[in-house]
């Protein structure tokens, strides 16, 4: 019973902190649309990623630190501290002070929602990996900076894939329809995604989104994707030396995909990145700056430092969370 109460208290705390941090960071997305950052899409993507993962990192760090004294006591590492504060709720896996109905309901709802969304996400990742493996078995490998897998079928694919083993998936028919220069522009764009490890970053953002409301998760993901696409356009323009070439490849691929979508009665359904905006930015490419991505490193460092700091102040955070739960419920 005490363990269940502890779990529900942790879930309620994580949900509260994730939502509160999202409410604080979400308005900052508007700042990313400012004129200064528009010129540096890679930095904008990094900041969007940091903002998107901050609620999850913050919630996890605080909940881990707040739960540490109790878990430490359960494992016999720390002394039992519960006798020292009988005046408010206990966040304790050993002794339950009795949960209030509202707190139990909020915790149960938050936990159920988290598990449902996490399960859904895990299922989609597994399904996608199986489908990708089946698709790649039909393809042929071509040499490139990253492996390029040319697959049969309609000209739908020109995608960077792989959370760890990075590769480019391209439809043979699409590669044949593009001129050599256009294809080099398209592949340079995908290579930029892989250098930036965008497929992994996208998955991490989706996982971070589990700690906040779907509305916020979508907003952060959308801001990051838009900036990441523009950053890769800039990188590709630098790589091939001509922004109009990448713009031309964009329009050509969009035209081919549109035709394929009509034939297959299906269409790529994720993320509407404004093609017109990307083309116009590419044609004005000389005003933009290409920089390398540091998002994963930044979030990893911030997360590690944050967790260390939180654990260092575990006792304070433990009592702060107990007081917060006591006041809220």
């Amino acid at each position: 019973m005490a363990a269940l109460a502890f779990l529900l208290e942790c879930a309620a705390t994580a949900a509260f902190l994730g939502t509160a941090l999202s409410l604080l960071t979400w308005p900052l997305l508007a700042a990313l649309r400012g004129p200064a950052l528009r010129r540096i899409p890679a930095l904008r993507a990094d900041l969007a990623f940091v903002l998107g993962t901050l609620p999850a990192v913050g919630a996890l760090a605080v909940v881990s630190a707040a739960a540490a004294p109790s878990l430490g006591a359960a494992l016999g590492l720390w002394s039992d501290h519960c006798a020292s504060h009988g005046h408010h709720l206990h966040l304790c896996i050993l002794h339950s002070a009795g949960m209030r109905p509202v707190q139990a309901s909020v915790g149960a709802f938050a936990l159920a929602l988290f598990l449902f969304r996490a399960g859904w996400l895990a299922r989609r990742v597994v399904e996608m990996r199986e489908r990708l493996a089946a698709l790649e078995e039909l393809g042929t490998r071509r040499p490139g900076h990253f492996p390029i897998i040319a697959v049969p079928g309609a000209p739908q694919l020109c995608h960077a894939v792989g959370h760890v083993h990075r590769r480019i998936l391209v439809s043979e028919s699409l590669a044949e329809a593009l001129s050599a220069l256009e294809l080099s522009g398209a592949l340079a764009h995908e290579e930029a995604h892989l250098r930036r490890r965008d497929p992994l970053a996208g998955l991490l953002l989706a996982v971070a989104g589990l700690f906040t409301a779907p509305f916020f998760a979508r907003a952060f993901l959308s801001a990051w994707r838009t900036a990441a696409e523009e950053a890769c356009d800039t990188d590709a323009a630098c790589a091939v030396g001509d922004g109009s070439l990448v713009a031309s490849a964009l329009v050509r691929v969009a035209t081919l995909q549109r035709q394929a979508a009509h034939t297959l009665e299906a269409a790529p359904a994720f993320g509407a990145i404004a093609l017109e905006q990307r083309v116009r930015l590419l044609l004005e490419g000389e005003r933009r700056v290409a920089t390398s991505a540091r998002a994963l490193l930044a979030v990893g460092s911030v997360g590690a430092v944050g967790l260390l700091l939180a654990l260092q102040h575990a006792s304070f955070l433990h009592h702060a969370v107990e007081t917060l739960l006591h006041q809220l419920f």
Partner: protein
Amino acid sequence: MKKRTWEPLGTLEAAVMHVVWTHSPVTAREVCDRMTGPEERAYTTIMTTMDRLHRKGLLLREKDGLAWRYAPALTRAAFEKALADGLATGILQAHGELALSAFVDAAAELDESLLDRLTQLIAQRRKGNT
């Protein structure tokens, strides 16, 4: 009309289809005789697999005496193309944002006039640069 989509074949199904594609039209007994070594299976297993492939629409069949004689409903290349289309569409529709970074997204949301306008814009810019 909506195009038919295919699921990836299992190991035994793929082995059977390989024989059918290379030796069509064949009976289940002939397929069984050609599957040797690690692919060797009981005749009844092959017969059941071929019946399942027929129900899936991958094999056509007609009576030849007491047995069924099977032929592929589509060539290997056509099957692989259709399978790739189905897999790619499924990945893009259901899982896109999880692992893929696309060169162009949401093509279906673009109308033809916008694409024409952008093509003209690029041509103009290139003309201006030369």
